[in-house]
């Protein structure tokens, strides 16, 4: 990685600040920071390792990532990726029974979690240096000799069914789920497990799934901590050197297309708030317009108190505690959505206010001051991507996993610096697809301050039965 410099041209160095100076006028030199550079190496079977040596504390963090994840699930077996990841951790490995793994890890305080992300699987471990051998031995057994104990399999499936039966308990969960189901439709991003899909999953499915994804030539590791590079290389070779290559290449499914009908999607729940989210599909994480779009969204509703949605709906009108907009730049198709939780009888008032703000931004853009605040915040805050060794090494490894060049963080920074007001306002016009809005409302219609059909031309009632 090349040298990072946090340079922003408007910053003027002033010294000898006076006591009476207003904080808004305090200026600081750009931060001159060269983050440590992780080492990258590969071993014969294809494992890519990023390592950041750090001897401040006698600890290690180890993550293993695999292309795959929940986007690989199919509708009839939705949930398979999650079950596989969970059972990998709880189903025993090598000579150890499930209980033995738990007790060996817990005895020395090693934390080891296995999970399925959207486009990858992850196993994350943290441990004290003195327990390196125990940790790597178990991690290696898990990745190369998992058992998938059938009684644990039964328990995981049965717990998953119970979780699905509880999926309408929390209004925030409902809002999130219904929004993604709506805008992504049948695309894997919109897929959620059902009682039926979980019942379709067999132990053989889990084993096949494991064999397909958890392979050394599909693996990127991010490791930090109290070891030398040579020590780590021999540790990796000792525990993972015999792991056989698969020659399976994992591809992501096709990007999401809009299949939903714009309109209002009503999910009924007996609560005293209206919990709503509205948005549309937009660009992927590789679109060069994303930098300007991110800056624009910061001013619109992504920048907390410094954004228009928070400023007007919360600070000025007192209508909500949580309100804003979020730009989720995903590899297979992102989305931008506004969200708000407000007292049920303030629904239409809040919604109209938010729609007016987003329309104003689309039509007339943001201001130069707003753009500069957003850019400065993003650029000055960049250092926090690197403030711990594990944070830094994982961020770099994730770049390769996501198909970005290793200097992308630096490039991102340059791209943010290069954003202009014209560009922000151009992307606002281009991508804020207001006639494609899907509006999801969770709450109780009879408490709202307006009938649903006054809020949208098309109203769809979301079925809440659990199947």
């Amino acid at each position, binding site marked *: 990685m090349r040298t990072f410099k946090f340079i922003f041209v408007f910053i003027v160095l002033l010294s000898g600040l006076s006591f009476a100076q207003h904080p808004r006028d305090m200026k600081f030199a750009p931060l001159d920071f060269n983050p440590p550079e992780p080492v990258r190496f590969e071993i014969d079977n294809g494992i890519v390792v990023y390592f950041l040596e750090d001897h401040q504390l006698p600890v290690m963090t180890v993550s293993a990532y695999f292309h795959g994840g929940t986007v690989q699930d199919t509708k009839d077996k939705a949930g398979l990726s999650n079950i596989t990841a969970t059972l990998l951790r709880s189903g025993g490995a090598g000579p150890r029974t499930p209980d033995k793994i738990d007790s060996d890890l817990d005895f020395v305080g090693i934390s080891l979690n296995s999970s399925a992300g959207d486009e990858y699987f992850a196993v994350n471990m943290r441990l004290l240096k003195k327990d390196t051998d125990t940790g790597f031995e178990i991690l290696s057994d898990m990745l190369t000799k998992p058992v998938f104990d059938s009684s644990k399999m039964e328990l995981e499936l*049965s717990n998953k069914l119970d979780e699905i039966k509880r999926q309408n308990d929390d209004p925030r969960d409902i809002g999130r789920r219904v929004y993604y189901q709506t805008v992504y439709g049948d695309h894997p991003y919109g897929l959620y497990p059902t009682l039926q899909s979980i019942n379709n999953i067999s132990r053989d499915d889990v084993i096949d799934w494991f064999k397909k994804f958890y392979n050394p030539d599909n693996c990127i590791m991010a490791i930090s901590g109290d070891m030398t590079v040579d020590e780590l290389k021999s540790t990796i070779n000792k525990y993972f050197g015999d792991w056989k290559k698969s020659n399976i290449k994992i591809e992501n499914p096709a990007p999401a297309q809009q299949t939903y009908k714009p309109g209002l999607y009503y999910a009924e729940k*007996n609560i005293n708030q209206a919990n709503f989210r509205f948005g549309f599909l937009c660009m992927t994480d590789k679109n060069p317009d994303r930098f300007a779009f991110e800056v624009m969204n910061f001013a619109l509703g992504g920048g907390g108190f410094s954004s228009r949605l928070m*400023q007007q709906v919360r600070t000025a009108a007192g209508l909500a505690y949580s309100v804003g907009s979020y730009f989720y730049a995903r590899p297979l198709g992102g989305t931008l959505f506004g969200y708000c939780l407000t007292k049920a009888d303030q629904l239409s008032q809040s919604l109209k206010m938010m729609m007016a703000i987003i329309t104003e931004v689309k039509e007339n853009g943001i201001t130069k001051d707003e753009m500069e*605040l957003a850019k400065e915040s993003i650029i000055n805050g960049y250092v926090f991507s690197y403030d711990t060794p594990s944070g830094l090494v994982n961020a770099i490894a994730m770049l390769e996993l996501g198909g970005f060049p290793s200097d992308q963080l630096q490039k991102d920074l340059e791209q943010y610096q290069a954003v202009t007001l014209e560009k922000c306002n151009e992307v606002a016009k281009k991508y804020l697809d207001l006639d494609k809005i899907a509006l999801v409302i969770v709450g109780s219609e009879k408490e709202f301050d307006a009938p649903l059909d006054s809020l949208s031309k098309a109203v769809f009632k979301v079925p809440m039965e659990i199947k």
Partner: protein
Amino acid sequence: MKQIKLTALIVITCFVLLFCTAWAGEKQPFPVNEIKLDNGLIVLIVERTNAPVFTGYICAGAGSAYEKIGNIGTAHLLEHMMFKGSETVGTSNIGAETELWIKEDSVWARIDKANRLTRYIKMNQPEKLEEHLKYIEDLNSILDSLAKASSQYTIPNEFDQIYTRHGAAQFNAWTGYDITSYHVSLPSNRLELWFKMESDRLKKPAFREFFTERDVVSEERRQSVENNSESKLFEQLIATSFLAHPYQIYWEWQSEINNLTRQDLQRFFDTYYTPSNLTIAVVGDVKTDEVKKLAEKYFGDMSPVDNFEPIYTEEPEQLGERRVNVSFDSSPAVYIAYHKTAFDSPDEPVFKVIGRLIGDGRTSRLYKSLVLDKQLSLNVDVAFFPGGIMGDRHAGVLNIYSEPKEGVSTADVEAAIYEEFEKLTTELVDETELTKIKNNIDADYIWATYNNFGLAYRLAITQNMTRDWRNLFKLREQLLAVTAEDIRRVAGKYLSENNRTVATLVPIKKGEDQ
């Protein structure tokens, strides 16, 4: 504000953190430096150079437990108002703003009085009700127009914008029961900005946009408690568990938020946001000398008043099991609470070990029994309330939360929990299990220092709660000294039927209670 001469007595103590057995013989890189200003304010500093950033963490030694009936919610609303800036940040004309606020407050006082009259007018002069309600409505319009007038002098969210512009991370605050915390992480060359901003709001706060923020706090309650089944159940558990102590109020009641005044906040601020009741920790890429200089410059002139009003109430002994049912549109769950000790009790470290024994990880007693072996529950969580890292200023509770699997009753889950507690009071924990817990304590003490925020948080809270940050590391020694016999004794003393409260979530079936 009166200027105090800056001849602060600076006590700098270099103290090597005590948790070195895990890597005996190796150099511990984080000494803690302590500064005490003349006015009583304590600043703790740890210099760490891994990245050019730092965390600033401020504790005020009072939270919601210090509110009085009639102004419940003050500590929380005050925490929100501290983000509104100060007499200099967030305003274009503080004089004009202040004048309008005084008018707002007097209009609110009339609204409040009129609101209280309404019930008597309804009862005794119903013919005048309409006129009376119109009067209230008119006053509310006046209040709105005053708020609008003052807003022309307000620079909205300027306090936030300044930090945001400089790349702030972890910028937030939280209201606890004993302590209220304010924290932010910044690039390290913004150290002076941090001192300027924080001292500004702590010396000259300005409670602008007051009445709107009351509504925001109401909405926060709706979102966090009223529409969240676990919080709702917990609120009832705590209210039932405490008869007398102010810990009984988990979250301010809606009716109290709506009647808070600026004077309530000012009184609380004057009483508790004083130098001797504030603690600061600065951890990261900073120099102690520089922090010392800036602390004197920006906080040295705070008046050394000490008018702390303590809580005298003690929770009376519980005389028998208490139970409460909560009907809600959600699946079944059970919450159980046992009264325990305060931070300074010799039993406190034993409780912390018991908490780990029953609730920490997949091999903990309750997870193993309820989730893995008997397969009665989906999950089981063990925590303390209020749950400070050093314990709490007053005796709190140990609480257990569990969601039963379908077809399992909460009574079955309860029975399985009590069975485990029975074992704790009759059988001694074996050495392997105790060693496991102690290994985890060791590991956690090391991980606690992994980032600036974690260390700053622990140091500030410990100093504020116990008046000596070294207790953070003394506690480690006390935890490692806990014996199997201690566990049996403390479990026997506290984990009894008479000392427990049980809250059960009873699902509302569709069609009921509509």
